[in-house]
C-alpha cells in the first residue's frame, strides 16, 4: 500500500517524539511564559487613540503626520495615571482619548512630560482594576534576556504581543534600553516586559536630539527598538504628577574637537551666563569626570549629562592648566533648559596661526575690519596677539591668556557677548601695546573690502594666480569644476549652484577666476545629474567634491560656504542642512528657505553667516523677510546679497564673504 506523505511524516514524527520525550515542550513552555507575562499586565495596558484636533492645531508639518495611528499607554497608578509617548500625545495636544481594557473610552489630560525621554504622564479617571506594575531594577538587566513588547494599537480588545531579546542596556545617551522585539506606533507607550511579566520600560521611539524626536520612525522593521526604563520614570513620577515638565539640561559649553563622539573633552568655549560659566568652567578645561563617572571622550560627557534635567546640579571635574601646572577642579553647574540666544561677538580681525600646524604660536593679525572694534582702537594688520583677557564682573576674574593661537582666540571669543570689555596685548615688532576695547556685534552685510589671500599661503597670488581643474576621476559623471587659488595652506571654499543644466562648462569658471585670485577662496562649481533639476544624487556629489579638493588644497573647515540662485539656491539650503556644522555660510538669490529644511540655532563655533537677496514681487519680498526673521531668531548673522550687475554670479561679493567667514 502507498501511504500519503503527511501520514508518513506523522508516523516518523511520532516515533521521534516518543524517542526524545516531549520535544516541543520547551517551545510551548516559553509560549506559556510569554502569555502569562502579558496576562499579568494586560489590565494595565490601555489604547491611546488619536485626537484629530491635537495634530491639526499643531505648529506645522511634522506633527500632522504623527498621532494618526492608535497607540498604547501603561497605567502606573490605579488613581488614573498613565504613561504614553510624546509620539502619540504631542506637546500640542491638550487632551487624549484612552480606551480602557473593558472597552470604555475616556478622556485624559497631559500632566507632565519628560521631554528628553519623549514620555508624557496622562491623568484619566480612576482604574481600580488595573494591576500594580512591577519595575525591573535597571542594574539587573542583561542583554540576551527575553523581552516582550505589549500594545493595544492593533486591537483594543486583546493586547498585542511581540517577542525578542534585550539587545543592549544603555542606549540613546543612557536614556533607553534596546530590544529586537518588533516595535511601532502600535505599541509605543506599552510596556516592555521580562519573562516574569515585570516591566523593563516603556516602548518609545529612540529619544534622540529634540529636532529628530518626531522622526524616530525610520527604524521600523530594522530589528531595533527602544524602551525608556520604568525605574527611571517612576523616580520622577511625583514631579510629573504635580504637572511639572522635565526639560533636558544644558551646560553651555562647546568642545574644541569636531569629533563629537571620540574627540577629547576639552572645552573650547563657555557661553556667557550659562550654567558652565556661573560654575566657573573655562575654555581649555579638560573634563575628566561627571557625577563620579569617568569621562575620556566627548561621548562620555554627553552620556553623563543626557539623562539629567534642567534644574539638576551635576558635579563636573576638570583638569585645568595654569602657570605650567595642572590642577583638578570640581564645578557644580545647575543645568538649564535653554540658553539665551547666542550673539556672536567680534574684535573685527582676521587672524592666522604663526606657521601652519603650529598651534602655540601667537595669532598673527592678517586684516582689520574697517570701522570694526579693533580698527577703532587703532590696531593695525601685521602684529600679533600677545595676550587677551575679558574684563569686568561678567568675566568673573578670568585669567589672562598668553600668546593665544588662532583657535584659542576663536574659542575664547565664542564664550563672550558683544559689548564685553577685553584687554588685548598687541605685539608689534618688539613692543607690546596694551589696548582695552569693547567687542562688537557680528557684521551682517559683506564689507566692500576683504583681506588679500593669507600671506602664510606663499607665494602671494597674482590676479591670474588660479587654476581650473575637474574634481574626481573619469568615472565621475558630471565632475565639478574647481577654481583653486595658487599658494599653499588651508583655503576657504565656496560651492556655487546656478541653474541646473547637467555638465558644467569650463567657460563658466571665468566669472569666478578674478574674485578667487583676489581673495584666495577656492570655488567649486558642481554639475547636476539631472538636466533640469538638482537632485538627491547631487547632495552626495558635494561631499565627494570637498573630499577630492582636499589633496589639491586643504580646506579651511571654519570657512566652508554654499551659495546659489533660484533652484540652485533652494538646493544650497538642502546642502547646508546636509553639511550641518561643516557649513558656516549660506548665500542665496531668489530662493526661499524650504520649510522642511531645519537650520539649527546658532551655537558658539558653528554659527552661520547668511546672505539673502533677490528681485521679485511683493510676495517674494515678504517671504524673504520671513526667512530673514526666522534665521535671525535662530541667532545667525543675516545680511543682504545684492543682485549682481550684468546677470552673472555675484562672484566678487561671495568670495569676499567666504574669505571673511573666519572673522574674529
Amino acid at each position: 500500500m502507498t501511504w500519503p506523505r503527511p501520514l508518513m511524516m506523522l508516523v516518523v514524527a511520532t516515533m521521534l517524539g516518543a524517542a526524545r520525550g516531549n520535544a516541543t515542550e520547551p517551545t510551548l513552555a516559553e509560549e506559556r511564559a510569554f502569555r502569562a507575562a502579558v496576562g499579568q499586565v494586560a489590565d494595565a495596558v490601555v489604547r491611546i487613540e488619536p485626537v484629530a484636533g491635537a495634530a491639526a492645531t499643531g505648529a506645522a508639518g511634522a506633527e500632522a503626520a504623527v498621532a494618526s495611528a492608535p497607540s498604547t499607554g501603561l497605567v502606573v497608578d490605579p488613581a488614573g495615571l498613565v504613561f504614553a509617548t510624546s509620539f502619540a500625545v504631542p506637546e500640542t495636544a491638550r487632551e487624549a482619548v484612552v480606551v480602557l481594557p473593558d472597552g470604555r473610552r475616556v478622556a485624559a489630560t497631559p500632566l507632565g512630560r519628560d521631554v528628553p525621554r519623549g514620555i508624557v504622564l496622562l491623568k484619566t479617571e480612576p482604574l481600580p482594576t488595573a494591576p500594580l506594575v512591577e519595575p525591573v531594577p535597571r542594574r539587573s538587566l542583561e542583554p540576551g534576556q527575553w523581552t516582550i513588547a505589549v500594545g493595544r494599537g492593533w486591537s483594543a480588545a486583546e493586547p498585542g504581543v511581540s517577542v525578542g531579546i534585550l539587545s543592549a542596556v544603555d542606549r540613546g545617551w543612557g536614556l533607553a534600553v534596546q530590544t529586537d522585539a518588533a516595535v511601532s506606533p502600535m505599541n509605543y507607550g506599552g510596556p516592555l516586559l521580562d519573562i516574569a511579566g515585570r516591566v523593563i520600560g516603556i516602548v518609545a521611539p529612540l529619544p534622540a536630539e529634540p529636532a529628530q524626536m518626531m522622526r524616530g520612525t525610520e527604524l521600523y522593521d530594522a530589528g531595533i527598538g527602544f524602551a525608556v526604563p520604568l525605574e527611571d520614570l517612576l523616580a520622577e513620577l511625583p514631579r510629573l504628577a504635580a504637572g511639572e515638565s522635565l526639560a533636558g539640561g544644558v551646560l553651555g559649553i562647546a568642545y574644541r574637537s569636531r569629533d563629537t563622539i571620540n574627540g577629547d573633552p576639552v572645552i573650547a568655549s563657555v557661553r556667557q551666563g550659562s550654567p558652565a560659566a556661573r560654575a566657573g568652567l573655562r575654555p581649555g578645561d579638560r573634563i575628566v569626570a561627571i557625577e563620579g563617572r569617568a569621562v575620556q571622550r566627548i561621548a562620555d560627557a554627553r552620556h553623563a549629562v543626557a539623562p539629567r534635567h534642567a534644574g539638576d546640579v551635576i558635579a563636573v571635574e576638570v583638569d585645568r592648566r595654569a602657570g605650567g601646572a595642572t590642577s583638578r577642579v570640581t564645578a557644580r553647574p545647575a543645568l538649564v533648559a535653554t540658553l539665551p540666544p547666542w550673539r556672536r561677538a567680534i574684535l573685527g580681525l582676521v587672524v592666522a596661526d604663526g606657521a601652519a600646524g603650529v598651534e602655540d604660536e601667537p595669532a598673527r593679525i592678517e586684516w582689520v575690519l574697517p570701522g570694526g572694534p579693533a580698527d577703532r582702537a587703532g590696531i593695525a594688520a601685521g602684529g600679533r596677539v600677545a595676550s587677551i583677557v575679558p574684563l569686568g564682573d561678567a568675566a568673573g576674574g578670568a585669567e589672562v591668556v598668553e600668546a593665544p593661537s588662532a583657535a584659542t582666540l576663536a574659542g575664547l571669543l565664542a564664550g563672550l557677548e558683544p559689548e564685553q570689555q577685553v584687554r588685548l596685548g598687541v605685539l608689534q615688532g618688539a613692543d607690546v601695546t596694551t589696548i582695552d576695547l569693547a567687542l562688537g556685534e557680528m557684521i551682517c552685510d559683506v564689507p566692500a573690502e576683504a583681506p588679500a589671500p593669507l600671506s602664510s599661503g606663499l607665494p602671494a597670488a597674482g590676479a591670474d594666480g588660479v587654476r581650473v581643474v575637474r574634481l574626481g576621476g573619469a568615472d565621475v559623471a558630471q565632475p565639478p569644476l574647481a577654481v583653486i587659488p595658487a599658494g599653499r595652506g588651508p583655503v576657504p571654499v565656496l560651492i556655487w549652484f546656478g541653474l541646473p543644466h547637467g555638465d558644467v562648462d569650463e567657460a563658466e569658471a571665468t566669472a569666478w577666476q578674478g574674485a578667487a585670485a583676489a581673495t584666495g577662496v577656492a570655488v567649486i562649481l558642481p554639475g547636476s545629474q539631472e538636466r533640469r533639476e538638482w537632485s538627491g544624487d547631487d547632495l552626495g556629489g558635494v561631499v565627494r567634491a570637498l573630499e577630492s579638493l582636499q589633496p589639491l588644497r586643504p580646506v579651511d573647515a571654519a570657512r566652508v560656504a554654499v551659495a546659489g540662485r533660484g533652484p540652485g539656491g533652494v538646493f544650497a539650503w538642502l546642502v547646508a542642512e546636509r553639511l550641518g556644522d561643516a557649513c558656516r555660510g549660506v548665500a542665496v538669490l531668489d530662493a526661499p528657505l524650504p520649510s522642511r529644511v531645519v537650520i539649527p540655532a546658532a551655537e558658539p563655533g558653528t554659527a552661520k553667516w547668511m546672505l539673502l537677496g533677490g528681485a521679485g514681487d511683493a510676495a517674494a519680498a515678504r517671504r524673504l523677510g520671513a526667512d530673514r526673521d526666522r534665521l535671525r531668531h535662530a541667532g545667525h548673522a543675516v545680511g543682504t546679497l545684492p543682485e549682481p550687475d550684468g546677470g552673472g554670479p555675484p562672484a566678487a561679493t561671495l568670495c569676499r564673504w567666504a574669505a571673511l567667514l573666519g572673522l574674529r
Partner: protein
Amino acid sequence: MIPRCFLVVAVVLAARAGAAADPTPQLVAVIAAKSVVKIYGAGGLRGLEAYQSGIILSPDGRIATALSTVLDAEGIDCVLDDGRRFEATLVGVDPRRELAVLSIDATDLPAAVPAAGRAAAGTRVLAVSNLFGVAVGDERASVQRGVIAAVAPLEARRGAADAPYTGTVYVLDFTTNNPGSPGGALVDARGRLLGMIGKELRASASGIWLNYALPVDEVLAGCAAVVEGRAGMTTAAAAPPFDLGLLGIVLVPDLLDRTPPFVETLLPESAAARAGLAADDLVIAVGGRAVGSRAAAERAVGAIAAGDPVRLSVIRAGTVVDIDLGPRPAVADAALPPETAP
C-alpha cells in the same frame, strides 16, 4: 511503500508516548516546508516579482496562493520542495480574500494539516515561504520564527487603494511579508497550518509595513467558495460617505487633509440636536471605532446600514460623552450602500 511491521512498531511507540508525542521544532520546520510550493508566473516588469509561494491543501494537487499579477501568465509553474516542476491550472480566485486556487496533476502530495480554531496573540509560529525567491533549486522554502502579535481586523492599503479584505488577520511580530512571500504558510509549534501569508501592505493609520497572514479558516472558506463557484468576481464597494446634515450635524469645513470632526452647529429640531449633541463637540468615534478626521467620520456613518443605530462618542470639556442619535436615515436620492456580501 512502508513495510507493515514498521508501522506496527511505530504505532506501539506512539501508544507508549501517549499524548506527549510532539515533533521537534526542526521536524516541524521540515513538515511545514514540504507543504509549501514555489510558484513562478508573470511579472518581472516595473519591479513586480514573477514568483510567490503556495500551500498544498490536498494530496491530489490543490494549492492555495495569493491573488496577484504573478498568476496573469499563460503557464504558471509550481515547484515542489523536492524540485519536481508541474504546470498549474488556475481553478479560480476569491478577490475579496485576495486568494487563488491552483491545481496540479499529481498525487500523494504532502498536504498541510490545518489547525482547529483561531490562535491567540503570543502563539509561537513559523512562517514558511520563498521570500525573495532565494530557493531556486530543488530546495525547500525558507523558515522564519516569531509570535502572533495580534488577532485584529486588517486596516491596510496598497498605494492609495484600500485592501479589499477587511476581516480578521494574524498580525505577526516578524518580517514575513516580503517579495515572494505571499501564499506562504504560517504554522504553529506542532506544524499545523494557521494561515496563509498575505501580500505586502501598509497599515492605513500608521503607514508602517504590515506582516500578517490570512487565518486558515478564511483560506479554506475561500478555497471552498472558489471550487464551488461562489466567490464573486467583484469586491464589495466601499460605503459612500454619509451626509451628516441628514442627522442635523454641521461639521467644521473640510479644508485640511485630516480636518478634525468638530461640530460647528446643529440644525434645529434635528435628531442630533434632540439627542444632545452640541457645537464644539469633537467626534472621536462612531459606533465604538475611532475616527481621526471629518472624512473618516462621514465614511463611518455611511457604513452603518439605514435603520441601524448611530452612536457617536465626542469630547466635550475634557470628558468623553456617548450620544445615541437613533436610527440612521436612508439616503433618499442616492443609492444605498450595498449590503455586505456573504
